[in-house]
């Protein structure tokens, strides 16, 4: 079996509870549908992410990537289907148990009060602390280590209200690391970062998966970043999962099918990865996702 087949949407290949033992950190999405009001945003999506993998969710705007991530996180409840993480049904776990297993970092509102960066990162220990009042030495050490890992140690005493978007994003990732879960769900983890921090952040994410066996499922806006760092790409379009493949299986046809864009694929020797170079946009059929925003 090729890796490509292994990551195919598994609704057909799996019959419910056939697999008894689940690996810690493995994500299984089974036939998930979700609607905002009457608008169906996810249509029968099934996918598997093995433990210790970096997987990317990619696709055009409005494809349902962020919604899928929120359903997997437990925040949104699917109208059909279920999500298993480490073999446990996410939507039936207690808050504490769920947040020890999964963390989610995405677009957060600006905080309203002047917490320091260190206080913010420490909140990642919320699922573990027992006392109302104090954190243990281990909790404090975990917060320090997380800030170091996510490049915001020098921000420790800054007020969170005074940070730039990029700095805030690093703090959110630090808090997620401090939470020490098995699964990281990241919605555009590099959206506000400059070139240097973008690379550092992606290296960090790769290391988390390789060295610490953490599972990462991230939404990427930048297809090249996904191709370079993820070991599996999930392409979504109009609420459905349309392709699941390894980066080296990517083709012009797939990009045209998903994005309606003619692109060239160029191999970049230094990074040993394929680069997608968009050439021209095909005319968008009226039936696909909502029109792009020009703001």
């Amino acid at each position, binding site marked *: 079996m090729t890796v490509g087949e292994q990551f195919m949407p598994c609704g057909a290949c799996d019959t419910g509870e056939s697999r008894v033992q689940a690996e810690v950190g493995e994500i299984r999405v089974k036939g998930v549908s979700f609607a905002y009001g009457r608008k169906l945003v996810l249509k029968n999506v099934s996918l598997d992410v093995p433990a210790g993998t970096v997987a990317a969710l990619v696709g055009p705007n409005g494809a349902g990537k962020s919604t899928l991530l929120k359903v997997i996180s437990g*925040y949104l409840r699917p109208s059909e289907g279920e999500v298993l993480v480490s073999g446990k049904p996410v939507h039936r776990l207690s808050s504490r148990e769920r947040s020890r297993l999964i*963390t989610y970092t995405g677009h957060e509102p600006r905080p309203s009060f002047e917490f320091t960066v260190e206080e913010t990162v420490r909140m990642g220990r*919320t699922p573990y602390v027992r006392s109302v009042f104090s954190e243990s030495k281990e909790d404090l050490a975990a917060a320090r280590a997380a800030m170091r890992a996510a490049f915001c140690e020098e921000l420790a005493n800054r007020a969170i209200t005074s940070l730039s978007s990029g700095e805030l994003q690093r703090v959110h990732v630090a808090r997620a690391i401090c939470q020490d879960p098995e699964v990281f769900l990241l919605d555009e983890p590099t959206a506000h970062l400059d070139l240097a921090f973008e690379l550092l952040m992606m290296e960090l994410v790769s290391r988390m998966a390789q060295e610490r066996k953490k599972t990462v499922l991230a939404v990427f806006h930048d297809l090249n970043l996904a191709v370079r760092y993820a070991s599996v790409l999930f392409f979504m379009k109009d609420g459905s999962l349309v392709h699941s493949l390894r980066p080296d299986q990517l083709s012009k046809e797939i990009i045209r099918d998903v994005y309606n864009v003619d692109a060239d694929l160029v191999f970049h020797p230094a990074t040993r990865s394929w680069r997608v170079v968009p050439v021209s946009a095909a005319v968008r059929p009226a039936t696909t996702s909502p029109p792009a925003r020009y703001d």
Partner: protein
Amino acid sequence: MRKRVPGRTYLVAVTALVAVSVSLGLALGTVFIPIGEITRILKEGPRQGDTFSLIIWTLRFPRVLLAFVEGASLSVAGVVMQGLFRNPMADPYVLGVASGASLGAVVGIVMGIGKALGLWALPGLAFLGAIGSTLFVYALSTKKGRTDTWTLLLSGIAVSSLVSSLIALIMVLWRERVEEIVFWTMGGLSRASWQSVLAAACYSLPGMWVLWLQARPLNALSFGEESAFHLGVAVEKSKRILLWASALITASGVAFTGPVGFVGLVVPHVVRLLTGPDHRWLLPLSALTGGNVLILADLLARTLRPPLEIPVGVITALFGAPFFLYLLFKTRRSGMDE
């Protein structure tokens, strides 16, 4: 970042201030009682035939304690509402929660429940009014876990005016009770007794304790409900506890002291500015500070023009209203609710 006063330092300082304020509250009034006398009287306990003892034990001491408990209640309710609505303009009066509590209490007075069941029933009815208006304002102003400042303030105003007219209507329909209602809505701590101190403490202290146990969830909620959810907070459960317990302590405050505005708005602000937004410290420190502030406000109310007593709500409004306006303009300038 502005330097903060460490929680412990502030705790020591504010406790010392409370001791000073309590002493002043016992010593000053139409008759001055020297500190030496006060310590003797407090040691000896209440004694028949001793005028000073009578003043201290039946008038000033319960009054000072009631002021402390209610000032603490209103401040804690303010902290919780600001944290929950993620909005520094929230407080029990601005949101109309206290007005709801007033309506409950007035209905109680008209129905004679206050007389029949004694002091204990009034806060219960005030609580019904408070929780009703809390849920109403919350539903009106919060969309997808975000609260818009202006919708919040306007809903609060709408609820307050609605309640004022309902109270006016009640006063017209039950004219024989007008005097009782007016006396109550004037507010003030002049009716303080040991019984009311005990009743207020029985409602407020457990309420404040329950709220303090929610300090961590409240911290997480400052980052929005979704972030709190991902950090492992049982968001809906925590919100329910926070709303109900803060309505309870507001009701206790309103039932025993009548309308005393702005304490719940100003105190949390000042304490947060000095010691930081961590609710584990902010809640107890605001309680002590708020208690202290209301003792001092009441002291001013009864010593400015003796033997006249200015309603304590007037004093707090004189200091608090300009602060509220300052905040409002600051919020608008910084575009905080964008």
